[in-house]
């Protein structure tokens, strides 16, 4: 992997610090004690085995959705459709989880595979439309989100046969849940999905940095014109990139369907996992390790936010402010860079004047 330059690291870290600072200011304005707020926030994130367990549990789907967004980013595409692909992956995993009765070593991989394939097919659509008809992927993938939302509801109602808003629980042979992990973390919902997610991050790195396909995908991502001149098929890469991105997204859904909930609920609104993936990819600078760390941070903030309600009576929405602020600071990384340059420049000038 390329060595990260100081600036590449500086921007995310500075953004996190500035984001927390914004959170502190908001707390002060709201009349809360930021010190107490942050103590209970951090305790809620990492302060106990339970907190760590819940943070990691919440991180698993975010790692996947972050990888999905990042993968497309790296190949020059913006997959906003991760949200819809998550839903499709979720419903596919739950369908297999409920309707089959197989030994675990077949059932669980089958359910994961189903999630991957279903979401990949879903992601294929915007990829194909872009490659074939030059329809912008942002538009199609957003629309596919809505189609996914209502399609999953229809599937839950009509195919899985939900009568009470929620499906039955999946068979244990398809479950990622682990009583051992739960006990270890005093009843968090930590499940094996976290390991699958870390494994996926390694696969992500491997595909992009080590395989010939990855070389090609990245080249197209950086400069599709030059890649086309060099003989690569840009269209094939667009479709492939979307399909692979969709697979990661589908697994994010499987984390919820086979891990956290073991079921799926009829929902009229999006899970947010896919959209959060955009923020995760952004903060993680589209690198494997960055995505994992960013996912853990965002997951931790969300979980810690719940503890903050109890520990400091600060509304959990505050962490949304912090997360949003971090994302804004990262996104305006150029601005931060500019300030850094300016400071450096001024310092130099000052020295010269002396």
């Amino acid at each position, binding site marked *: 992997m390329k060595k990260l330059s100081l600036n590449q690291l500086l921007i995310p870290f500075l953004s996190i610090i500035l984001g927390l600072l914004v959170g502190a200011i908001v707390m002060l304005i709201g*009349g809360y004690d930021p010190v107490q707020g942050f103590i209970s926030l951090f305790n809620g994130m990492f302060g106990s085995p339970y907190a760590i367990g819940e943070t990691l549990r919440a991180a698993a789907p975010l790692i996947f959705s972050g990888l999905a967004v990042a993968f497309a980013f790296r190949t020059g595409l913006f997959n906003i459709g991760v949200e819809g692909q998550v839903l499709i992956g979720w419903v596919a995993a739950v369908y297999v989880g409920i309707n089959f009765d197989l030994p675990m070593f077949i059932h669980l991989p089958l359910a994961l595979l189903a999630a991957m394939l279903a979401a990949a097919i879903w992601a294929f659509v915007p990829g194909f439309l872009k490659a074939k008809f030059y329809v912008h992927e942002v538009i199609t993938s957003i629309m596919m989100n809505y189609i996914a939302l209502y399609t999953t509801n229809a599937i839950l109602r009509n195919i899985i046969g939900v009568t*009470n*808003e929620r499906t039955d629980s999946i068979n244990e042979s398809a479950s990622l849940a682990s009583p051992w992990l739960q006990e270890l973390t005093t*009843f968090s919902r930590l499940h094996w999905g976290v390991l699958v997610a870390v494994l996926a991050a390694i696969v992500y790195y491997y595909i992009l940095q080590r395989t010939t396909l990855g070389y090609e995908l990245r080249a197209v991502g950086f400069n599709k014109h030059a890649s086309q001149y060099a003989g690569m098929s840009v269209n094939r890469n667009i479709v492939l990139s979307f399909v692979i991105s969709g697979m990661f997204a589908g697994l994010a859904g499987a984390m919820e369907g086979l891990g956290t909930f073991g079921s799926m609920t009829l929902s009229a609104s999006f899970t947010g996992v896919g959209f959060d993936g955009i923020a995760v990819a952004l903060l993680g600078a589209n690198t494997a390790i960055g995505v994992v760390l960013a996912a853990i941070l965002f997951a931790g903030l969300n979980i810690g936010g719940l*503890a903050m*309600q109890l520990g400091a009576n600060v*509304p959990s929405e505050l962490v949304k402010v912090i997360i949003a602020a971090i994302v804004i600071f990262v996104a305006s990384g150029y601005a931060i860079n500019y300030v850094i340059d300016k400071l450096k420049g001024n310092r130099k000038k000052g020295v010269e004047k002396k």
Partner: protein
Amino acid sequence: MMNKKKTILSALAAGLTLSTVLAACGGDDNEGGSSNGEGGGEGSDFKVAMVTDTGGVDDKSFNQSAWEGLTKFGEDNDLTENEGFKYLQSAKQADYQPNLQQLARDNFNLIYGIGFLMAEDVKKVADQFPDNNFAIVDMVVDAPNVASITFKEQEGSFLVGVIAGLSTTTDKVGFIGGVESDLIKKFENGFKAGVMAVNPDATIDVKYAEDFNSAEKGTAIASGMYGSGSDIIYHAAGGTGVGVFTEAKNRKKNGEDVWVIGVDRDQYEEGLPEDVTLTSMVKRVDTATYEVSKQTMDGEFPGGEIIEFGLKDEGVGIAETSDKHVSQDILDKVEEYRTQLVDGELTAPATDAEFEEFMKNVK
């Protein structure tokens, strides 16, 4: 969000010191001590809390109602907010379990899960914390330390159905449900039965928004129903119902004579200023949370029991403001049916099958 903020700010204004177990862990010993002293001064260390579903504590519906019950209970017993009684907000379904667990860890004596979606989480956490007491609203959870609170929504819905059936001038009324489920079916079937009991010629337009939090969908469906001739709509759709009110108000402004029947709480105010609320089917979640809290504090926690609140217990009913728009004749009729239901002479149908059975008898 605003309301929530207000609640917390008002708590602050009341001069409470914010101090918590976690803060004490952080090394803030002084405050922890003083607050303990304060708590002791109240003469009670009973702690009760609830976890909202994703609707939040200001949903103008059963979360809010449940919190009102707890607030009243707290005030009546000199408990302080955040200390003696408290709510935790859930932004996502995934938050239910950690919220319940947190409260259990923090040794709250009684912990409510509001809404049937929390059933599995309550069950799980109740197993993990056998020494804590839990209660679930709108669902039955089978565990020795869980009290299941349910309502006979079909009875209250039957009564508003009677009002709708007698008040409609078009012989056409509508029902808008949130998400189709056994629970909302109780509202639907009770309502239909009430309408049919008094007005067998009426048609009832039933639609589900498949969403509890979409005002836009509520507006769209209501627009369709009013447009096709219904003049009264009963909604059991939470936040989606807000859109039903919006549509009704707009039509009323244009001179149309349309009405909404509210749900869960007395929604008279939601109908203002155009005044479109005909009546409301009141579901006294607040009574339930108050009652169960009181029993628990008195050492009579109904663990493992199913507590059903119906007309008889005044757990459901029609809103007090009903007399504003409903004539005394109709209210007398309602009272007639109420007596029959309470006495068991008549049973309001809860499921589709029961409704069909009911219809046979009507004919």
